[in-house]
């Protein structure tokens, strides 16, 4: 049983909650490897995927997770919803509430949108990415992958490299790593470093090459050109030379260290083709874990809710 009703930010979950999700996801990963992947667990429950910003992998991952648990999953996208007709988020929330849905998964371009939804409905809310703020389910699947690959999270040094300023992935990963006893270091050019990196609980550095041999996890972020108003660096090529993982940096990595990326990858920018396809890369393992982690999350958030707690 999870202590929080909603997952709006990763801080809603205690370290115990996070570990419970990861532990439960192990069994769901087994289920996803079976011939019959469907479970009857959430039969009759209604899950709405409210994706008001483009997304393919996260929305698909949530949809697969809900369907494998036998919940009825309904997808609503920005262009198809009443928001384009000017409906406010609060009105959307009350409308969905009137349809008695059990869980709403929201992706929105503005930070805090999931919180607005939560204030206007009884259903449980999962934040699937809000602007530059947080992406807590990405964090859960990242933690799952780190634990599975390295055996534990505690004590590990995780370098988060790239567009920290615009990254909701970093926004939720850093505090979770700190809460679980790992050491996050954000590594970026000054123009992509947020003005207050300390609020993430992470150390900061501008030099990847100095730190690379010490990192257990090399977490590269996507250069989000769509969120950048002006060019923060002279060229993508220069960025790749200073912060991209190429064959030379692949060699400099600590033995056993892994490469992660939330996807989609800009090949040749954050990761060279060689790095993206190297045995160190865990990018597809992250995607694979994503479905299991989201199943675990839905199971723990929707199951047992009438009792409040288990005796």
């Amino acid at each position, binding site marked *: *049983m999870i202590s929080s009703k909603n997952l709006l930010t990763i801080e809603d979950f205690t370290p115990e909650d996070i570990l419970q999700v990861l*532990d*439960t996801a*192990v*069994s769901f990963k*087994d*289920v996803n490897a*079976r*011939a*019959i992947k*469907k*479970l*009857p*667990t*959430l039969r009759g429950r209604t899950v709405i995927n409210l994706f008001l910003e483009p997304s393919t992998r996260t929305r698909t991952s949530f949809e697969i997770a809900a369907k494998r*648990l036998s919940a009825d999953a309904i997808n609503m996208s920005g262009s198809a919803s009443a928001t384009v007709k000017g409906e406010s988020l609060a009105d959307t929330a009350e409308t969905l509430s009137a349809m008695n849905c059990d869980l709403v998964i929201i992706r929105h371009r503005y930070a805090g949108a999931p919180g607005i939804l939560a204030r206007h409905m009884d259903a449980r809310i999962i934040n699937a990415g809000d602007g530059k703020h947080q992406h807590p389910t990405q964090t859960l699947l990242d933690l799952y992958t780190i634990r599975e690959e390295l055996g534990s999270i505690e004590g590990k040094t995780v370098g988060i490299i790239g567009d920290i300023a615009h990254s909701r992935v970093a926004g939720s990963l850093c505090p979770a790593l700190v809460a679980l006893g790992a050491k996050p270091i954000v590594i970026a050019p000054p123009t992509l470093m947020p003005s207050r990196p300390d609020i993430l609980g992470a150390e900061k550095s501008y030099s990847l090459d100095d730190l690379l041999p010490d990192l257990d996890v090399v977490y590269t972020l996507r250069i989000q050109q769509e969120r950048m108003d002006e060019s923060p660096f002279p060229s993508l090529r220069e960025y790749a030379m200073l912060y991209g993982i190429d064959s030379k940096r692949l060699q400099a990595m600590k033995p056993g260290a892994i490469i992660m990326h939330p996807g989609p990858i800009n090949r040749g920018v954050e990761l060279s083709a060689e790095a993206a396809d190297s045995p160190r890369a865990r990018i597809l393992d992250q995607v694979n874990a994503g479905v299991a982690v989201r199943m675990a999350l839905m*199971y*723990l958030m929707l*199951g*047992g*809710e*009438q*009792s409040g707690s*288990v*005796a």
Partner: protein
Amino acid sequence: MTDYTVKAVVLDELAIDRALTRIAHEIIEVNKGTENLALVGIVTRGDLLAADLAKRIEKIEGVKVPVGRLDISFYRDDVNTHLAPEVHRTEIPFKIDGCTVVLVDDVLFTGRTIRAALDALVDYGRPARIELAVLVDRGHRELPIRADFVGKNVPSSLDEHVRLYLEETDGRSSVEISQKRSGERAGAAPLGQGGEEL
């Protein structure tokens, strides 16, 4: 947490040993040997009993029968009200298609665990036949389910609690009946710690 006072030990270590030996013999007898036979225990406790039965069958027949363990958390009919405190991994490292699968559990009570286990099992394949072995049948069925192999029938009242303790996990092997102090119906309680029956 409800407190329980132990009323009686219905099976001691020796009696459990004898019951399991008899069940092992009966499984072999009914199935005319061990061909296509497999054991699947329901966690927790049922999996330990299944492993134990497999050892006994091997001693008698000289054949290792495949053993699996099944967690039924995702198949329970009360997911909306109660969550199992811990989800365990299901491990069935063999194909169950065409097998005679003997489901093994510690205490048979309402039958709801077995209903869930049947649903879970058929998601792994299509066994030729499914049989049920339990160490204790305490009655009070809520579904049309019966066991093929029973260690001991233990008539009980609903405010009692029938529980198996095993050397491996609890430091002693016994089946004990205890009385719920508050007098409320034991069966209405959710599946609590391992070994509590449903």
